[in-house]
Protein backbone atom coordinates (compact mmCIF):
# COMPACT_ATOMS: atom_id res chain seq x y z
CA UNK A 1 0.00 0.00 0.00
CA UNK A 2 1.56 3.26 -1.03
CA UNK A 3 1.87 5.90 1.63
CA UNK A 4 0.83 8.60 -0.83
CA UNK A 5 -2.77 8.62 0.39
CA UNK A 6 -2.22 6.91 3.68
CA UNK A 7 -2.98 9.32 6.45
CA UNK A 8 -4.67 8.63 9.74
CA UNK A 9 -7.67 10.95 9.97
CA UNK A 10 -8.85 12.87 12.93
CA UNK A 11 -12.57 12.17 13.19
CA UNK A 12 -15.19 14.57 14.42
CA UNK A 13 -18.06 12.98 16.37
CA UNK A 14 -21.54 14.16 15.41
CA UNK A 15 -24.74 13.39 17.30
CA UNK A 16 -26.96 12.52 14.35
CA UNK A 17 -29.81 10.36 15.65
CA UNK A 18 -31.31 11.65 18.87
CA UNK A 19 -32.68 9.20 21.41
CA UNK A 20 -36.35 9.64 20.31
CA UNK A 21 -35.35 8.86 16.72
CA UNK A 22 -33.51 5.73 17.83
CA UNK A 23 -36.42 4.55 19.98
CA UNK A 24 -38.77 5.26 17.07
CA UNK A 25 -36.54 3.29 14.71
CA UNK A 26 -36.34 0.14 16.81
CA UNK A 27 -39.98 0.21 17.92
CA UNK A 28 -40.90 0.58 14.28
CA UNK A 29 -38.65 -2.31 13.26
CA UNK A 30 -40.09 -4.57 15.98
CA UNK A 31 -43.68 -3.62 15.13
CA UNK A 32 -43.12 -4.19 11.41
CA UNK A 33 -41.56 -7.61 12.00
CA UNK A 34 -44.46 -8.59 14.28
CA UNK A 35 -46.98 -7.25 11.77
CA UNK A 36 -45.43 -9.08 8.82
CA UNK A 37 -45.17 -12.42 10.65
CA UNK A 38 -48.71 -12.27 12.06
CA UNK A 39 -49.97 -10.79 8.78
CA UNK A 40 -48.68 -13.77 6.80
CA UNK A 41 -50.16 -16.05 9.45
CA UNK A 42 -53.55 -14.38 9.16
CA UNK A 43 -53.55 -14.50 5.38
CA UNK A 44 -52.65 -18.20 5.27
CA UNK A 45 -52.75 -19.84 8.70
CA UNK A 46 -50.61 -22.98 9.13
CA UNK A 47 -52.46 -26.24 9.69
CA UNK A 48 -51.81 -26.72 13.40
CA UNK A 49 -54.30 -29.33 14.44
CA UNK A 50 -55.28 -30.19 17.96
CA UNK A 51 -57.47 -32.61 19.85
CA UNK A 52 -58.62 -29.82 22.10
CA UNK A 53 -62.10 -28.48 21.90
CA UNK A 54 -62.35 -25.19 20.05
CA UNK A 55 -63.50 -23.55 23.28
CA UNK A 56 -60.14 -24.37 24.89
CA UNK A 57 -58.09 -22.88 22.14
CA UNK A 58 -57.62 -19.28 21.09
CA UNK A 59 -54.52 -19.62 18.92
CA UNK A 60 -55.67 -17.69 15.88
CA UNK A 61 -57.32 -15.17 18.15
CA UNK A 62 -53.96 -14.50 19.80
CA UNK A 63 -52.19 -14.13 16.47
CA UNK A 64 -54.72 -11.56 15.39
CA UNK A 65 -54.49 -9.90 18.80
CA UNK A 66 -50.72 -9.47 18.39
CA UNK A 67 -51.32 -8.04 14.93
CA UNK A 68 -53.77 -5.46 16.29
CA UNK A 69 -51.59 -4.53 19.29
CA UNK A 70 -48.58 -4.10 17.01
CA UNK A 71 -50.63 -1.99 14.65
CA UNK A 72 -51.48 0.43 17.46
CA UNK A 73 -47.79 0.67 18.43
CA UNK A 74 -46.88 1.17 14.78
CA UNK A 75 -49.56 3.83 14.32
CA UNK A 76 -48.73 5.96 17.36
CA UNK A 77 -45.02 5.56 16.69
CA UNK A 78 -45.63 6.83 13.15
CA UNK A 79 -47.59 9.82 14.48
CA UNK A 80 -44.74 10.56 16.88
CA UNK A 81 -42.19 10.47 14.06
CA UNK A 82 -44.22 12.98 12.07
CA UNK A 83 -44.21 15.24 15.12
CA UNK A 84 -40.48 14.75 15.52
CA UNK A 85 -40.02 15.85 11.90
CA UNK A 86 -40.87 19.31 13.22
CA UNK A 87 -39.39 19.10 16.71
CA UNK A 88 -36.20 17.12 16.20
CA UNK A 89 -32.72 18.09 15.04
CA UNK A 90 -31.92 18.96 11.45
CA UNK A 91 -31.21 15.35 10.47
CA UNK A 92 -34.70 14.36 11.60
CA UNK A 93 -36.39 17.33 9.96
CA UNK A 94 -39.23 16.73 7.49
CA UNK A 95 -37.34 18.71 4.84
CA UNK A 96 -34.78 15.88 4.67
CA UNK A 97 -37.42 13.60 3.16
CA UNK A 98 -39.47 15.59 0.69
CA UNK A 99 -37.81 16.76 -2.55
CA UNK A 100 -38.81 20.39 -2.43
CA UNK A 101 -35.79 21.91 -4.15
CA UNK A 102 -33.69 21.46 -7.27
CA UNK A 103 -30.73 20.92 -5.02
CA UNK A 104 -32.46 17.93 -3.44
CA UNK A 105 -33.14 16.34 -6.83
CA UNK A 106 -29.61 17.07 -8.01
CA UNK A 107 -28.21 15.30 -4.95
CA UNK A 108 -30.47 12.31 -5.62
CA UNK A 109 -28.98 12.09 -9.09
CA UNK A 110 -25.46 12.34 -7.67
CA UNK A 111 -26.15 9.52 -5.19
CA UNK A 112 -27.58 7.45 -8.01
CA UNK A 113 -24.39 7.90 -10.03
CA UNK A 114 -21.95 7.37 -7.19
CA UNK A 115 -23.54 4.76 -4.96
CA UNK A 116 -25.77 2.77 -7.31
CA UNK A 117 -24.05 2.91 -10.71
CA UNK A 118 -20.66 3.53 -9.03
CA UNK A 119 -19.48 5.72 -11.90
CA UNK A 120 -15.96 7.12 -11.83
CA UNK A 121 -15.01 10.70 -12.50
CA UNK A 122 -11.77 11.26 -14.43
CA UNK A 123 -10.84 7.69 -13.58
CA UNK A 124 -11.17 8.43 -9.88
CA UNK A 125 -13.47 6.40 -7.65
CA UNK A 126 -16.04 8.70 -6.14
CA UNK A 127 -17.42 9.09 -2.66
CA UNK A 128 -20.57 10.87 -1.63
CA UNK A 129 -20.43 12.09 1.94
CA UNK A 130 -23.51 12.83 4.00
CA UNK A 131 -23.93 13.09 7.72
CA UNK A 132 -27.64 12.38 8.06
CA UNK A 133 -29.62 10.85 5.20
CA UNK A 134 -28.45 11.42 1.67
CA UNK A 135 -31.12 12.80 -0.65
CA UNK A 136 -31.91 9.42 -2.23
CA UNK A 137 -32.34 7.75 1.17
CA UNK A 138 -34.48 10.62 2.39
CA UNK A 139 -36.76 10.30 -0.61
CA UNK A 140 -37.07 6.52 -0.17
CA UNK A 141 -38.03 7.10 3.47
CA UNK A 142 -40.66 9.51 2.22
CA UNK A 143 -42.06 6.65 0.13
CA UNK A 144 -42.06 4.40 3.19
CA UNK A 145 -44.06 7.02 5.06
CA UNK A 146 -46.62 6.89 2.27
CA UNK A 147 -46.66 3.08 2.58
CA UNK A 148 -47.11 3.51 6.36
CA UNK A 149 -50.07 5.73 5.64
CA UNK A 150 -51.60 3.23 3.20
CA UNK A 151 -51.22 0.41 5.75
CA UNK A 152 -52.73 2.49 8.55
CA UNK A 153 -55.67 3.56 6.39
CA UNK A 154 -56.46 0.10 5.01
CA UNK A 155 -55.61 -1.73 8.24
CA UNK A 156 -57.68 0.41 10.56
CA UNK A 157 -60.36 0.59 7.86
CA UNK A 158 -60.68 -3.19 8.01
CA UNK A 159 -60.47 -3.15 11.80
CA UNK A 160 -63.12 -0.40 12.22
CA UNK A 161 -66.02 -2.83 11.86
CA UNK A 162 -64.94 -4.92 14.85
CA UNK A 163 -64.03 -2.09 17.14
CA UNK A 164 -66.11 -0.01 19.46
CA UNK A 165 -63.49 2.70 19.88
CA UNK A 166 -63.82 5.97 18.01
CA UNK A 167 -60.23 5.98 16.75
CA UNK A 168 -60.46 2.96 14.40
CA UNK A 169 -64.00 4.07 13.57
CA UNK A 170 -62.49 7.21 12.05
CA UNK A 171 -61.21 4.94 9.27
CA UNK A 172 -64.52 3.27 8.44
CA UNK A 173 -64.78 5.33 5.25
CA UNK A 174 -61.75 3.58 3.73
CA UNK A 175 -63.38 0.26 2.70
CA UNK A 176 -66.32 2.27 1.35
CA UNK A 177 -63.92 4.06 -1.01
CA UNK A 178 -62.67 0.71 -2.35
CA UNK A 179 -66.20 -0.73 -2.52
CA UNK A 180 -65.75 -3.16 0.35
CA UNK A 181 -63.38 -5.12 2.55
CA UNK A 182 -62.16 -7.53 -0.12
CA UNK A 183 -60.21 -5.03 -2.22
CA UNK A 184 -59.11 -3.15 0.90
CA UNK A 185 -57.64 -6.39 2.27
CA UNK A 186 -55.80 -7.04 -0.98
CA UNK A 187 -54.26 -3.55 -1.02
CA UNK A 188 -53.21 -4.10 2.59
CA UNK A 189 -51.57 -7.38 1.61
CA UNK A 190 -49.76 -6.07 -1.48
CA UNK A 191 -48.38 -3.06 0.34
CA UNK A 192 -46.85 -5.35 2.95
CA UNK A 193 -44.46 -6.61 0.28
CA UNK A 194 -43.05 -3.10 -0.06
CA UNK A 195 -42.02 -3.28 3.60
CA UNK A 196 -40.22 -6.59 3.08
CA UNK A 197 -38.33 -5.36 0.02
CA UNK A 198 -37.54 -2.06 1.71
CA UNK A 199 -36.19 -3.76 4.84
CA UNK A 200 -33.79 -5.94 2.85
CA UNK A 201 -32.44 -3.09 0.75
CA UNK A 202 -32.25 -0.87 3.84
CA UNK A 203 -30.18 -3.35 5.87
CA UNK A 204 -27.91 -4.02 2.89
CA UNK A 205 -27.25 -0.33 2.31
CA UNK A 206 -26.44 0.26 5.97
CA UNK A 207 -23.73 -2.38 5.69
CA UNK A 208 -22.60 -0.96 2.34
CA UNK A 209 -22.12 2.55 3.70
CA UNK A 210 -20.35 1.35 6.80
CA UNK A 211 -18.05 -0.82 4.68
CA UNK A 212 -17.20 1.78 2.07
CA UNK A 213 -17.12 4.90 4.24
CA UNK A 214 -16.13 3.76 7.73
CA UNK A 215 -18.11 6.50 9.45
CA UNK A 216 -20.14 4.44 11.91
CA UNK A 217 -23.28 3.91 9.80
CA UNK A 218 -24.31 0.66 11.50
CA UNK A 219 -23.69 1.75 15.08
CA UNK A 220 -25.28 5.16 14.61
CA UNK A 221 -28.74 3.78 15.24
CA UNK A 222 -27.44 2.40 18.54
CA UNK A 223 -25.64 5.35 20.10
CA UNK A 224 -26.65 8.09 17.72
CA UNK A 225 -23.05 8.94 16.67
CA UNK A 226 -21.57 9.27 13.26
CA UNK A 227 -18.01 10.32 12.49
CA UNK A 228 -16.62 12.58 9.83
CA UNK A 229 -13.08 13.45 8.91
CA UNK A 230 -12.05 16.81 10.29
CA UNK A 231 -10.89 18.10 6.90
CA UNK A 232 -14.12 17.05 5.20
CA UNK A 233 -15.96 19.00 7.82
CA UNK A 234 -13.73 22.05 7.49
CA UNK A 235 -13.85 22.03 3.70
CA UNK A 236 -17.62 21.50 3.78
CA UNK A 237 -17.45 18.52 1.46
CA UNK A 238 -20.43 16.80 3.06
CA UNK A 239 -23.98 17.07 1.76
CA UNK A 240 -27.31 17.75 3.35
CA UNK A 241 -30.55 17.66 1.36
CA UNK A 242 -32.53 20.87 1.86
CA UNK A 243 -30.12 22.47 4.33
CA UNK A 244 -31.24 25.50 6.24
CA UNK A 245 -30.39 28.58 4.22
CA UNK A 246 -28.01 29.98 6.82
CA UNK A 247 -25.82 26.91 6.65
CA UNK A 248 -22.80 27.02 4.38
CA UNK A 249 -22.85 23.95 2.21
CA UNK A 250 -20.49 22.14 -0.08
CA UNK A 251 -20.99 21.64 -3.78
CA UNK A 252 -21.43 18.39 -5.61
Amino acid at each position, binding site marked *: *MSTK*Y*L*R*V*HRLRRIYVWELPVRIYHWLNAAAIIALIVTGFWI*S*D*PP*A*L*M*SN*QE*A*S*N*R*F*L*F*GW*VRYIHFISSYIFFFNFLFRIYWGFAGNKYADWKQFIPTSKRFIREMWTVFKID*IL*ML*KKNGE*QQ*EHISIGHNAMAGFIYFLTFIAFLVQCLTGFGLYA*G*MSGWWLPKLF*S*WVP*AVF*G*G*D*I*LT*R*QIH*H*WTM*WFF*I*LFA*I*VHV*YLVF*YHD*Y*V*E*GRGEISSMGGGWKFIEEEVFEENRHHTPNPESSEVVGTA
Partner: protein
Amino acid sequence: MSNDVITKQPTYYQEIIRKGYSRRDFVRFAGMMAAFIGLENSAIGQVAKALETNPRIPIIWLHFQECTCCSESFIRSSHPIVADILLDKVSLDYTETLMAASGIQAEEALKNTMSKYKGEYILCVEGSVPTAADGVYCMIGGKTSMQILDEAAEGAKAIIAWGSCACNGCVQAAKPNPTSATPIHKLVKGKPVIKVPGCPPIGEVMAGVIVHLLTFGKIPELDRLGRPKAFYSKRVHDTCYRRPFFDAGLFVESFDDENAQKGYCLYKVGCKGPSTYNACGVTKWNGGTSFPIQSGHPCIGCSEENFWDNGRFYERGSAFAGFGIESDADTVGKVALGVTAAALAGHAIYTNINKSRIIDRLTAEGKASEKEMEG
Protein backbone atom coordinates in the same frame (compact mmCIF):
# COMPACT_ATOMS: atom_id res chain seq x y z
CA MET B 1 -104.71 15.58 -6.35
CA SER B 2 -102.54 12.52 -6.41
CA ASN B 3 -103.00 12.13 -2.67
CA ASP B 4 -106.74 11.76 -3.14
CA VAL B 5 -106.18 8.99 -5.59
CA ILE B 6 -103.90 7.21 -3.17
CA THR B 7 -106.29 7.30 -0.21
CA LYS B 8 -108.81 5.48 -2.35
CA GLN B 9 -106.41 2.57 -2.51
CA PRO B 10 -107.19 -0.28 -0.09
CA THR B 11 -104.91 -0.69 2.90
CA TYR B 12 -102.61 -3.68 3.25
CA TYR B 13 -104.81 -5.02 6.04
CA GLN B 14 -107.89 -4.87 3.85
CA GLU B 15 -106.06 -6.73 1.11
CA ILE B 16 -104.81 -9.35 3.57
CA ILE B 17 -108.25 -10.02 5.02
CA ARG B 18 -109.79 -10.08 1.57
CA LYS B 19 -107.23 -12.72 0.61
CA GLY B 20 -108.62 -14.95 3.38
CA TYR B 21 -105.96 -14.56 6.07
CA SER B 22 -107.11 -14.28 9.69
CA ARG B 23 -106.35 -11.40 12.03
CA ARG B 24 -104.01 -13.78 13.87
CA ASP B 25 -102.02 -14.45 10.69
CA PHE B 26 -101.75 -10.72 10.16
CA VAL B 27 -100.44 -10.01 13.66
CA ARG B 28 -97.96 -12.85 13.36
CA PHE B 29 -96.73 -11.36 10.09
CA ALA B 30 -96.38 -7.90 11.65
CA GLY B 31 -94.36 -9.37 14.55
CA MET B 32 -92.12 -11.30 12.23
CA MET B 33 -91.42 -8.28 10.04
CA ALA B 34 -90.67 -6.10 13.05
CA ALA B 35 -88.13 -8.69 14.18
CA PHE B 36 -86.48 -8.84 10.75
CA ILE B 37 -86.16 -5.07 10.53
CA GLY B 38 -84.57 -5.15 13.95
CA LEU B 39 -87.27 -3.22 15.78
CA GLU B 40 -88.03 -3.75 19.43
CA ASN B 41 -91.17 -5.36 20.81
CA SER B 42 -93.07 -2.16 21.27
CA ALA B 43 -92.78 -1.32 17.58
CA ILE B 44 -94.83 -4.33 16.49
CA GLY B 45 -97.95 -2.27 17.10
CA GLN B 46 -96.55 0.46 14.90
CA VAL B 47 -95.94 -1.98 12.07
CA ALA B 48 -99.45 -3.46 12.44
CA LYS B 49 -100.99 0.00 12.55
CA ALA B 50 -99.13 1.12 9.46
CA LEU B 51 -100.31 -1.94 7.56
CA GLU B 52 -103.87 -1.37 8.79
CA THR B 53 -104.15 2.30 7.98
CA ASN B 54 -101.70 3.12 5.21
CA PRO B 55 -102.92 2.69 1.69
CA ARG B 56 -100.72 0.37 -0.30
CA ILE B 57 -97.82 2.10 -1.98
CA PRO B 58 -97.79 1.76 -5.74
CA ILE B 59 -94.69 -0.06 -6.83
CA ILE B 60 -93.13 -0.43 -10.23
CA TRP B 61 -90.75 -3.35 -10.42
CA LEU B 62 -88.45 -3.31 -13.45
CA HIS B 63 -86.30 -6.16 -14.72
CA PHE B 64 -83.18 -5.44 -16.74
CA GLN B 65 -79.97 -7.47 -17.03
CA GLU B 66 -80.63 -10.11 -14.38
CA CYS B 67 -81.68 -13.71 -13.79
CA THR B 68 -84.82 -13.06 -11.67
CA CYS B 69 -83.24 -14.83 -8.70
CA CYS B 70 -84.11 -11.75 -6.61
CA SER B 71 -87.81 -12.23 -7.38
CA GLU B 72 -87.45 -15.94 -6.72
CA SER B 73 -85.86 -15.24 -3.37
CA PHE B 74 -88.53 -12.69 -2.51
CA ILE B 75 -91.48 -15.01 -3.09
CA ARG B 76 -89.75 -17.61 -0.91
CA SER B 77 -89.83 -15.37 2.15
CA SER B 78 -90.75 -17.44 5.17
CA HIS B 79 -94.21 -15.92 5.51
CA PRO B 80 -96.72 -16.43 2.68
CA ILE B 81 -98.15 -12.94 3.19
CA VAL B 82 -94.92 -11.52 1.81
CA ALA B 83 -95.47 -13.12 -1.54
CA ASP B 84 -99.23 -12.80 -1.50
CA ILE B 85 -99.52 -9.19 -0.57
CA LEU B 86 -96.24 -7.40 -0.87
CA LEU B 87 -95.38 -8.88 -4.23
CA ASP B 88 -98.64 -10.06 -5.69
CA LYS B 89 -100.67 -6.98 -4.84
CA VAL B 90 -97.98 -4.43 -4.63
CA SER B 91 -96.29 -5.18 -7.90
CA LEU B 92 -99.43 -5.68 -9.90
CA ASP B 93 -98.92 -2.19 -11.28
CA TYR B 94 -96.06 -3.35 -13.42
CA THR B 95 -93.60 -6.19 -13.28
CA GLU B 96 -92.53 -8.12 -16.35
CA THR B 97 -92.30 -11.45 -14.58
CA LEU B 98 -95.63 -11.68 -12.79
CA MET B 99 -98.11 -9.25 -14.32
CA ALA B 100 -101.06 -10.63 -16.24
CA ALA B 101 -101.05 -7.98 -18.93
CA SER B 102 -98.70 -8.05 -21.88
CA GLY B 103 -97.77 -5.97 -24.89
CA ILE B 104 -99.48 -2.62 -25.29
CA GLN B 105 -101.68 -3.17 -22.25
CA ALA B 106 -98.66 -3.73 -20.03
CA GLU B 107 -96.95 -0.63 -21.35
CA GLU B 108 -100.18 1.25 -20.78
CA ALA B 109 -100.32 0.07 -17.15
CA LEU B 110 -96.76 1.26 -16.60
CA LYS B 111 -97.51 4.65 -18.11
CA ASN B 112 -100.71 5.02 -16.07
CA THR B 113 -99.03 4.20 -12.77
CA MET B 114 -96.22 6.59 -13.55
CA SER B 115 -98.49 9.52 -14.30
CA LYS B 116 -101.20 8.74 -11.73
CA TYR B 117 -98.82 8.33 -8.79
CA LYS B 118 -96.10 10.73 -9.88
CA GLY B 119 -93.74 11.40 -6.98
CA GLU B 120 -95.41 8.70 -4.88
CA TYR B 121 -94.45 5.33 -6.27
CA ILE B 122 -91.48 3.23 -5.28
CA LEU B 123 -89.32 2.06 -8.15
CA CYS B 124 -87.76 -1.36 -7.63
CA VAL B 125 -85.04 -2.26 -10.10
CA GLU B 126 -83.76 -5.76 -10.54
CA GLY B 127 -80.75 -5.95 -12.82
CA SER B 128 -78.11 -3.66 -14.26
CA VAL B 129 -78.36 -1.37 -17.25
CA PRO B 130 -76.04 -1.87 -20.26
CA THR B 131 -74.76 1.46 -21.50
CA ALA B 132 -72.53 0.24 -24.35
CA ALA B 133 -73.75 0.73 -27.93
CA ASP B 134 -76.44 3.16 -26.73
CA GLY B 135 -77.98 0.49 -24.54
CA VAL B 136 -79.12 -1.91 -27.27
CA TYR B 137 -78.06 -4.95 -25.24
CA CYS B 138 -81.22 -4.75 -23.14
CA MET B 139 -84.41 -3.54 -24.80
CA ILE B 140 -88.01 -3.96 -23.71
CA GLY B 141 -90.99 -2.88 -25.79
CA GLY B 142 -88.72 -1.09 -28.26
CA LYS B 143 -87.00 1.02 -25.62
CA THR B 144 -83.59 0.60 -24.14
CA SER B 145 -83.37 -0.11 -20.44
CA MET B 146 -81.61 3.24 -20.08
CA GLN B 147 -84.66 5.06 -21.43
CA ILE B 148 -87.08 3.02 -19.32
CA LEU B 149 -85.05 3.66 -16.17
CA ASP B 150 -84.82 7.39 -16.88
CA GLU B 151 -88.57 7.67 -17.39
CA ALA B 152 -89.51 5.53 -14.39
CA ALA B 153 -86.97 7.13 -12.06
CA GLU B 154 -88.17 10.66 -12.77
CA GLY B 155 -91.43 10.35 -10.82
CA ALA B 156 -90.26 7.84 -8.23
CA LYS B 157 -90.29 8.69 -4.53
CA ALA B 158 -87.41 6.31 -3.87
CA ILE B 159 -85.57 3.59 -5.71
CA ILE B 160 -84.71 0.16 -4.41
CA ALA B 161 -81.84 -1.56 -6.20
CA TRP B 162 -82.53 -5.28 -5.76
CA GLY B 163 -79.58 -7.61 -5.78
CA SER B 164 -75.96 -7.38 -6.84
CA CYS B 165 -76.87 -6.66 -10.49
CA ALA B 166 -78.62 -3.41 -9.63
CA CYS B 167 -76.10 -2.55 -6.88
CA ASN B 168 -72.79 -3.29 -8.58
CA GLY B 169 -73.44 -5.01 -11.91
CA CYS B 170 -72.74 -8.55 -10.69
CA VAL B 171 -71.50 -11.11 -13.23
CA GLN B 172 -72.32 -9.13 -16.36
CA ALA B 173 -70.18 -6.26 -15.06
CA ALA B 174 -67.25 -8.60 -14.37
CA LYS B 175 -64.20 -7.98 -16.53
CA PRO B 176 -64.26 -7.25 -19.40
CA ASN B 177 -67.89 -6.15 -18.98
CA PRO B 178 -68.70 -6.29 -22.72
CA THR B 179 -72.08 -4.54 -22.43
CA SER B 180 -70.86 -1.89 -19.95
CA ALA B 181 -73.39 -3.16 -17.42
CA THR B 182 -73.88 -0.28 -14.98
CA PRO B 183 -75.44 -0.29 -11.50
CA ILE B 184 -78.48 1.87 -10.84
CA HIS B 185 -76.92 4.39 -8.44
CA LYS B 186 -74.49 5.47 -11.15
CA LEU B 187 -77.30 6.28 -13.58
CA VAL B 188 -79.94 7.87 -11.39
CA LYS B 189 -79.23 11.27 -9.91
CA GLY B 190 -81.14 13.13 -7.26
CA LYS B 191 -83.22 10.19 -5.95
CA PRO B 192 -82.53 8.12 -2.87
CA VAL B 193 -81.30 4.68 -3.90
CA ILE B 194 -81.50 1.85 -1.37
CA LYS B 195 -79.03 -0.87 -2.25
CA VAL B 196 -80.02 -4.38 -1.29
CA PRO B 197 -77.08 -6.41 -2.62
CA GLY B 198 -76.74 -10.17 -2.70
CA CYS B 199 -77.04 -12.79 -5.37
CA PRO B 200 -79.87 -12.96 -4.54
CA PRO B 201 -80.57 -10.92 -1.40
CA ILE B 202 -82.33 -12.81 1.40
CA GLY B 203 -86.12 -12.77 0.89
CA GLU B 204 -86.78 -11.60 4.45
CA VAL B 205 -84.33 -8.75 3.96
CA MET B 206 -86.16 -7.64 0.84
CA ALA B 207 -89.54 -7.85 2.59
CA GLY B 208 -88.06 -6.04 5.60
CA VAL B 209 -86.95 -3.11 3.44
CA ILE B 210 -90.42 -2.73 1.93
CA VAL B 211 -92.17 -3.07 5.31
CA HIS B 212 -89.83 -0.45 6.75
CA LEU B 213 -90.76 1.90 3.91
CA LEU B 214 -94.47 1.52 4.55
CA THR B 215 -94.28 1.53 8.33
CA PHE B 216 -92.21 4.67 8.69
CA GLY B 217 -92.85 6.32 5.37
CA LYS B 218 -89.15 6.93 4.84
CA ILE B 219 -86.12 5.01 3.71
CA PRO B 220 -84.29 2.94 6.34
CA GLU B 221 -80.96 4.11 7.74
CA LEU B 222 -78.23 3.38 5.20
CA ASP B 223 -74.50 2.75 5.58
CA ARG B 224 -71.74 4.42 3.60
CA LEU B 225 -72.34 2.15 0.63
CA GLY B 226 -76.08 2.85 0.63
CA ARG B 227 -77.19 -0.44 2.19
CA PRO B 228 -79.78 -0.64 5.00
CA LYS B 229 -77.84 -0.81 8.25
CA ALA B 230 -80.34 -3.20 9.80
CA PHE B 231 -79.18 -6.00 7.48
CA TYR B 232 -75.72 -5.05 6.22
CA SER B 233 -73.89 -3.66 9.25
CA LYS B 234 -72.43 -6.98 10.39
CA ARG B 235 -70.02 -9.27 8.65
CA VAL B 236 -71.16 -12.82 7.94
CA HIS B 237 -68.00 -13.77 9.86
CA ASP B 238 -69.14 -12.01 13.04
CA THR B 239 -72.46 -13.84 13.13
CA CYS B 240 -71.12 -17.19 11.94
CA TYR B 241 -71.69 -20.20 14.18
CA ARG B 242 -68.27 -21.56 13.08
CA ARG B 243 -66.47 -18.50 14.45
CA PRO B 244 -65.06 -20.35 17.52
CA PHE B 245 -63.12 -22.64 15.15
CA PHE B 246 -61.67 -19.57 13.47
CA ASP B 247 -60.49 -18.10 16.76
CA ALA B 248 -59.07 -21.46 17.79
CA GLY B 249 -57.17 -21.73 14.51
CA LEU B 250 -58.98 -24.90 13.44
CA PHE B 251 -59.54 -24.83 9.70
CA VAL B 252 -60.84 -27.04 6.91
CA GLU B 253 -57.80 -27.73 4.70
CA SER B 254 -59.71 -29.37 1.84
CA PHE B 255 -63.34 -30.18 1.23
CA ASP B 256 -62.93 -33.92 1.73
CA ASP B 257 -60.91 -33.89 4.93
CA GLU B 258 -61.85 -34.82 8.46
CA ASN B 259 -61.94 -31.17 9.46
CA ALA B 260 -64.69 -30.51 6.95
CA GLN B 261 -66.67 -33.33 8.53
CA LYS B 262 -66.14 -31.82 11.96
CA GLY B 263 -67.50 -28.53 10.74
CA TYR B 264 -64.33 -26.47 11.20
CA CYS B 265 -63.93 -22.93 9.88
CA LEU B 266 -63.89 -22.60 6.06
CA TYR B 267 -61.46 -19.64 6.07
CA LYS B 268 -58.65 -21.49 4.28
CA VAL B 269 -60.88 -22.83 1.54
CA GLY B 270 -61.72 -19.29 0.55
CA CYS B 271 -64.57 -18.22 2.81
CA LYS B 272 -65.27 -14.52 2.19
CA GLY B 273 -67.32 -14.24 5.38
CA PRO B 274 -64.67 -12.01 7.01
CA SER B 275 -65.09 -9.45 4.21
CA THR B 276 -68.80 -9.78 3.54
CA TYR B 277 -71.54 -7.69 5.09
CA ASN B 278 -74.88 -9.52 5.11
CA ALA B 279 -77.47 -11.08 7.41
CA CYS B 280 -76.94 -14.72 6.32
CA GLY B 281 -75.62 -15.85 9.70
CA VAL B 282 -78.66 -14.44 11.52
CA THR B 283 -81.66 -14.56 9.20
CA LYS B 284 -80.42 -17.53 7.17
CA TRP B 285 -82.24 -18.74 4.07
CA ASN B 286 -85.45 -20.53 3.13
CA GLY B 287 -87.28 -19.75 6.32
CA GLY B 288 -84.24 -20.05 8.56
CA THR B 289 -83.29 -23.51 7.30
CA SER B 290 -79.61 -22.98 6.53
CA PHE B 291 -77.05 -20.77 4.84
CA PRO B 292 -74.03 -21.61 2.67
CA ILE B 293 -71.51 -21.98 5.51
CA GLN B 294 -73.90 -24.21 7.44
CA SER B 295 -74.06 -26.42 4.36
CA GLY B 296 -70.26 -26.68 4.32
CA HIS B 297 -69.62 -24.22 1.52
CA PRO B 298 -67.51 -21.10 2.00
CA CYS B 299 -69.20 -17.74 1.61
CA ILE B 300 -68.42 -16.36 -1.86
CA GLY B 301 -69.15 -12.79 -0.78
CA CYS B 302 -72.06 -12.40 -3.23
CA SER B 303 -73.28 -9.20 -1.58
CA GLU B 304 -69.88 -7.48 -1.92
CA GLU B 305 -69.00 -5.24 -4.82
CA ASN B 306 -67.30 -6.95 -7.78
CA PHE B 307 -67.27 -10.30 -6.06
CA TRP B 308 -66.62 -12.05 -9.38
CA ASP B 309 -63.37 -10.18 -9.86
CA ASN B 310 -62.18 -10.05 -6.26
CA GLY B 311 -59.98 -13.13 -6.29
CA ARG B 312 -60.78 -16.81 -6.39
CA PHE B 313 -63.75 -18.32 -4.59
CA TYR B 314 -61.92 -21.25 -3.01
CA GLU B 315 -58.66 -19.63 -1.93
CA ARG B 316 -57.61 -16.89 0.44
CA GLY B 317 -54.86 -15.75 -1.94
CA SER B 318 -55.68 -12.69 -3.93
CA ALA B 319 -55.45 -12.91 -7.69
CA PHE B 320 -53.35 -10.25 -9.28
CA ALA B 321 -54.85 -8.77 -12.42
CA GLY B 322 -52.46 -8.81 -15.34
CA PHE B 323 -50.22 -11.64 -14.12
CA GLY B 324 -52.47 -14.55 -15.01
CA ILE B 325 -55.00 -16.16 -12.74
CA GLU B 326 -52.45 -18.35 -11.01
CA SER B 327 -50.39 -15.42 -9.76
CA ASP B 328 -51.24 -13.86 -6.47
CA ALA B 329 -49.66 -11.08 -4.48
CA ASP B 330 -47.33 -13.48 -2.68
CA THR B 331 -46.02 -15.05 -5.88
CA VAL B 332 -45.27 -11.63 -7.30
CA GLY B 333 -43.74 -10.68 -3.95
CA LYS B 334 -41.45 -13.72 -3.91
CA VAL B 335 -40.25 -12.99 -7.44
CA ALA B 336 -39.58 -9.36 -6.47
CA LEU B 337 -37.72 -10.63 -3.41
CA GLY B 338 -35.52 -12.87 -5.56
CA VAL B 339 -34.79 -10.09 -8.03
CA THR B 340 -33.93 -7.71 -5.18
CA ALA B 341 -31.64 -10.23 -3.52
CA ALA B 342 -29.85 -10.87 -6.83
CA ALA B 343 -29.49 -7.14 -7.47
CA LEU B 344 -28.02 -6.59 -4.00
CA ALA B 345 -25.57 -9.47 -4.45
CA GLY B 346 -24.50 -7.94 -7.76
CA HIS B 347 -24.13 -4.55 -6.14
CA ALA B 348 -22.02 -6.03 -3.34
CA ILE B 349 -19.62 -7.65 -5.83
CA TYR B 350 -19.50 -4.51 -7.93
CA THR B 351 -18.75 -2.45 -4.82
CA ASN B 352 -15.64 -4.49 -4.08
CA ILE B 353 -14.39 -3.91 -7.60
CA ASN B 354 -15.37 -0.34 -8.24
CA LYS B 355 -14.75 1.12 -4.82
CA SER B 356 -11.63 -0.97 -4.22
CA ARG B 357 -9.29 2.00 -3.82
CA ILE B 358 -11.54 3.68 -1.29
CA ILE B 359 -11.98 0.47 0.67
CA ASP B 360 -8.23 -0.29 0.55
CA ARG B 361 -7.49 3.18 1.81
CA LEU B 362 -9.84 2.68 4.77
CA THR B 363 -8.32 -0.69 5.55
CA ALA B 364 -4.79 0.66 5.34
CA GLU B 365 -5.68 3.55 7.58
CA GLY B 366 -7.22 1.19 10.10
CA LYS B 367 -4.14 -1.00 10.10
CA ALA B 368 -1.84 1.98 10.47
CA SER B 369 -3.79 3.10 13.51
CA GLU B 370 -3.56 -0.37 14.95
CA LYS B 371 0.23 -0.30 14.62
CA GLU B 372 0.53 3.11 16.20
CA MET B 373 -1.48 1.91 19.17
CA GLU B 374 0.87 -1.04 19.68
CA GLY B 375 3.89 1.19 19.28
